[in-house]
């Protein structure tokens, strides 16, 4: 049995790589890949070559050498004898501190302004619009420098607080606003303060459990428990009670004028204030727009339906609009948090000792390890950003529309 084998034999010609659609995209990808690899290898070999020409090697040993410089704002112990690695750590914590403070305040401002901008009150909504447009249309750097300049030029000097001086402390002599920063009382933790902390944590757990219980009960029986009042009570009463029962284990250390400056208390430096507030106000303006767009994205029919069911306006907002708006709000909010964290490196303008200033500034300068330092710095910002966005993504997944 012979069947004619007339089907033309596939012969592969080189030109097919270009003209045959079956191969073309593969060809393009291979070429693109090779070009990419070539330019990468050129970059690496060029770097190696140039380092060699300069007589420099590539090593991270400098991180264990003594740093030799002082840092004013330290969250962990550090002296000029500590290592460059530790100095980098101090800087990292300072970056995280300002990023955390900034994100918190920016969110509060953003949500408030975003909601108020939709207010029916003309004056309020216009004022919010002015804030949003004013802050997001002027470069962040200017806001940072402006707040810093106001703090250091317009605030009184510590010596003005002396007897007969022109300035005086606020809030019952517990706080001083000076041109070197704001001095506030510092909590001193004595024996028994751990118990107090545990009580406070337990009452937080209590609030959470009560809310769950109240929610369940409402679903089953329709009864509404006074959640707000019970939560507030749980928040304050046990902690305050134990504070006195334990004999006041936490006291406040007030700042006092001594020598050149205020001593004691916590000094919130100008550099931190300028960076923190500028970042919050600037990012807050963007968040306000995100919140507004999120709310507007929920169709009007939802509000009308809620009203028709007899829900009052603020319950409509809390129970119907915001949960749906959150789905629109969270993804762009993540970007704003990432922006804020990276923008914190504008600390350079006011001498805030963040990781850019310690590892990426003084350390690089004193050791000449530009490449190593910059790589580590990039790695830090990358890691920080990835951690923030993955945490926020977990939250996003919880808020996402669950199709049942």
């Amino acid at each position, binding site marked *: 049995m012979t069947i004619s084998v007339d089907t033309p034999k596939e012969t592969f010609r080189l030109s097919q790589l270009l003209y045959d659609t079956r191969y073309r995209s593969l060809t393009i990808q291979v070429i693109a890949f090779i070009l990419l690899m070539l330019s990468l290898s050129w970059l690496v070999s060029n770097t190696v070559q140039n380092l060699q020409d300069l007589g420099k090697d590539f090593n991270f040993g400098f991180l264990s050498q003594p740093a030799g410089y*002082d840092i*004013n704002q330290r969250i962990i112990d550090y*002296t*000029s004898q500590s290592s460059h690695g530790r100095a980098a750590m101090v800087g990292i914590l300072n970056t995280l501190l300002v990023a955390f403070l900034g994100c918190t305040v920016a969110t509060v401002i953003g949500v408030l302004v975003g909601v108020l901008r939709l207010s029916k009150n003309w004056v309020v909504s216009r004022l919010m619009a002015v804030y949003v447009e004013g802050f997001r249309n002027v470069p962040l750097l200017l806001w940072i420098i402006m707040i810093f300049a106001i703090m*250091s030029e317009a605030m009184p000097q510590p010596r003005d607080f002396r007897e007969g001086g022109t300035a005086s402390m606020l809030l019952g002599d517990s706080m001083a606003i000076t041109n070197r920063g704001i001095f506030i009382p510092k909590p001193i933790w004595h024996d028994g303060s751990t118990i107090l902390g545990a009580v406070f944590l337990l009452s937080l757990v209590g609030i959470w459990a009560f809310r769950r219980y109240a929610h369940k009960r409402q679903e089953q029986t329709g009864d509404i428990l006074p959640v707000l009042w019970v939560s507030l009570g749980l928040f304050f009463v046990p902690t305050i009670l134990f504070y006195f029962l334990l004999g006041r284990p936490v006291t406040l250390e007030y700042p006092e004028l*001594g*020598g050149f400056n205020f001593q004691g208390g916590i000094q919130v430096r100008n550099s931190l204030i300028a960076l923190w507030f500028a970042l919050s106000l600037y990012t807050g303006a963007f968040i306000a727009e995100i919140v507004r767009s999120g709310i507007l994205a929920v169709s009007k029919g939802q509000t009308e339906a809620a009203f028709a069911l007899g829900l009052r306006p603020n319950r409509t907002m809390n129970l119907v609009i915001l949960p749906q708006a959150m789905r629109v709000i969270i993804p762009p909010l993540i970007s704003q948090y990432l922006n804020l964290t990276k923008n914190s490196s504008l600390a350079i303008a006011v001498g805030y000792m963040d990781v850019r200033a310690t590892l990426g500034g003084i350390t690089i*300068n*004193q050791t000449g390890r530009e490449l190593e330092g910059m790589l580590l710095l990039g790695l830090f910002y990358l890691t920080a950003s990835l951690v923030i966005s993955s945490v926020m993504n977990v939250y996003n997944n919880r808020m996402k529309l669950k199709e049942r």
Partner: protein
Amino acid sequence: MKKTILLGALTVAGLAATAASASTLDDVRARGKLNCGVTTGLAGFAAPDANGVWQGFDVDMCRAVAAAVFGDPMAVEFVPTTGQTRFTALASGEVDMLARNTTWTFSRDVDLKFEFAGTNYYDGQGFMVPKALGVTSAKDLDGATVCIQTGTTTELNLADFFRANNISYEPVPIETNAEGLQQYGAGACDAYTTDASGLAASRATFENPGDHIVLPEIISKEPLAPLVRHGDNQWGDVVRWTLNAMITAEELGVTSANVRELAAAAGDNPEVNRLLGTEGELGAMLGLSADWAVNAIAAGGNYGESFERNIGSSTPIGLARGLNALWTNGGLLYSPPFR
């Protein structure tokens, strides 16, 4: 495929070869001007005047090198650098040399791979405070807020000084001298510390210089020196010997006023003749023209002239020669001989 890889490898090799630069002197010649790193502005040392022309003691150093290379002291592009950016600017080739109140230290020379071309100002770190503070010694500064420029030897010395004396301070890090003075002027720091020459220069720009005093303690040695990258000895020699030519010229009485005349024909002092190229081949050995030193000296004068005109006792800055007098006058300036 093989072809692509081969071609690629060739390109890589070719590009890498261009990245490894030719000699700095050739680069500077090809460019037609010298890129010189200076401060962002320090009166008397390097600052643009009312017409935007850079003037000062360090600027004269750059101009002398440009004159030695091109015969034209104006063939300089001044690149302002801060304490933090200066070394990267030099290492990356953005500038050919730095003349920027930079202290010659072991680690900068050996570890950061720079070559210092000889000290052009012997300095030390001091403190300035408002008179009203009533402080008379740096040891009284316990608890004070001190403004410092970051990326300098200043901040390292400061940490050492306070630790050694077991007193505390609050550092306020700033990027440039101008920022430091603004903070100091606003009273955001009690004291300002930097090289004593920088303090004198800054104090001279105040409205009432008399309201501020420089404390007696000098807490460090700061030999300020022009510097270049390691590894290009010819270029290092050009800068080193231009500085030496300025110092030697002062020693031999060669000034910007008489240098052309002295260079017109060989005179009876053989060292003057060798310096000015009327005898011997020193210029050619450096790879420069025979009259390189003549041009360098004519540019901003000899060392003493440049010092007096920019920072000397007749200027508002009013620095005495002190350690920076010639060795023949009891100072430390001592150039190796031109032969």
